[in-house]
């Protein structure tokens, strides 16, 4: 397909000289958009996964209570949780861990002892049976009046909405870019047909089929799209390498889990291949349609 000879002097067409560059920019933008969507989807998905199957119970502090009284209240809540069908484990989040998680906002070494922070219990859920959340809340409220059971439902729904929005946005932009690529190929192909009208007539008169002529254009479009695709892909590779190098130097506590898996690279590599296929099919369809108009 790449090495086939061309009876038409398509390589010298002014309209097609810019096509590889146009395609490289489009491949670059589409791949960058897709890479961004994949990275953010991966990060938010792992976030969402981390929250699924877990509840957090907050026991508000009471002013002036002793450490023994705090421990008794927490033990009481943990016992209720452990008795609840569907709960596999419940343990207090150590105050030191709470302090570490607040470090990015409060600064290292800040004492959280004097802050009126709620006591936290991390609850792990079993796959089955499902926890009766209403009943659990009622039981905990009877034991600890102001206790709060956070199932992270609102947060998870927001994350899911965010993932969906990102994917829809990426899909929309990629479709837009594909549309621009198709338009550029259609324009270049039509221009080629107009420029080489006389050659096409001669080819027809010596018995060339429409398919024979269309193959010439689609082979040329493939060559141009391949060049553009390779350049675009290399630019994206370099951009991502610089991006992830920068990410690696940032504080992981402040950053979501940004990583690019082998699977992501495979998905990304579909873009230049798809652009080549789109260019070929577009050129072919355009030529066949235009040839029907010629004769």
């Amino acid at each position: 397909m790449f090495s086939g000879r061309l009876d038409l002097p398509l390589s010298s067409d002014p309209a097609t000289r810019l096509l590889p560059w146009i395609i490289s920019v489009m491949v670059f933008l589409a791949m960058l958009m897709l890479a961004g969507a994949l990275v953010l989807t991966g990060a938010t998905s792992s976030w969402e996964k981390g929250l699924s199957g877990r509840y957090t119970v907050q026991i508000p502090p009471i002013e002036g209570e002793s450490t023994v009284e705090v421990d008794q209240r927490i033990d009481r809540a943990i016992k209720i949780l452990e008795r609840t069908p569907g709960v596999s484990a419940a343990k207090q989040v150590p105050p030191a861990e709470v302090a570490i998680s607040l470090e990015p906002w409060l600064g290292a070494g800040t004492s959280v002892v004097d802050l009126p922070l709620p006591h936290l219990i991390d609850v792990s859920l079993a796959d089955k049976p499902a926890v009766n959340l209403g009943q659990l809340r009622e039981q905990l409220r009877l034991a600890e009046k102001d206790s709060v059971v956070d199932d992270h439902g609102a947060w998870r729904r927001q994350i899911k909405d965010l993932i969906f929005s990102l994917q829809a946005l990426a899909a929309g932009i990629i479709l837009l870019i594909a549309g621009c690529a198709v338009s550029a190929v259609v324009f270049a192909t039509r221009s080629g047909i107009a420029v080489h009208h006389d050659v096409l007539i001669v080819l027809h008169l010596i018995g060339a089929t429409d398919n024979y002529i269309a193959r010439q254009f689609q082979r040329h479009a493939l060559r141009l799209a391949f060049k553009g695709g390779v350049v675009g892909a290399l630019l994206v590779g370099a951009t991502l390498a610089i991006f992830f190098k920068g990410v690696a130097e940032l504080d992981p506590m402040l950053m979501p889990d940004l990583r690019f898996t082998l699977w992501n690279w495979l998905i990304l590599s579909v873009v230049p291949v798809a652009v080549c296929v789109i260019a070929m099919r577009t050129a072919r369809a355009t030529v066949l349609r235009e040839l029907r108009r010629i004769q």
Partner: protein
Amino acid sequence: MIRFENVGMRYGAGPEVLSDISFNLEPGAFRFVTGPSGAGKSSMLKLMYLAEKPSRGLIQLFDRDVSGLRRNEMPALRRQIGVVFQEFRLLDHLSAFDNVALPLRVAGMPEDVIAKHVTELLSWVGLAGQLDARPVTLSGGQQQRVAIARAVIARPQLLLADEPTGNVDDAIAVRLLYLFEELNKVGTTIVIATHNEGLVSHFDYPVLHLEDGILTTPSRDAGI
């Protein structure tokens, strides 16, 4: 092979350039089409090689009514017709070799067979040393020989030539017509449009003579 019956032709809304043309050519015929410039010789040939459609009348090629031809049936029919265009219509970006090879490539012939046939034929027409030359670097006569080689390379059943000897001297013109004669002897039907009455008289073949788009001297084959 070719049958015209009351054929008329006009370009767009213009006047008829051919009127009531009727004749019949059997396979293996050799005909000259003569007449002054503007008489309709080229237009008649265009109808024969399916570059134009008649405004009226019936045209049959290879026993098929051309008005009923579907688009996808035309290439196969055209491959049986070799054409030497008046203005050659060589592809300037291709070498002489590639120009002549074109009909074989279009027909899907293997490259080794193409190379053998094309080289032989170009040698025969005296262009062995010009295989890689682009048409623009060739003289008018050389271009004409390349055009003739392209028309005959695929051994068509019907060869149509529009002023094929217009740019060559008489000696080469006669030599080229001998090539057409050889093709005719192996069964190719030949139709040559020319205004060179001297050349026509050199050979003893029937003539279709056109005056103002009307066939004024029907050949022996006419008589539908």
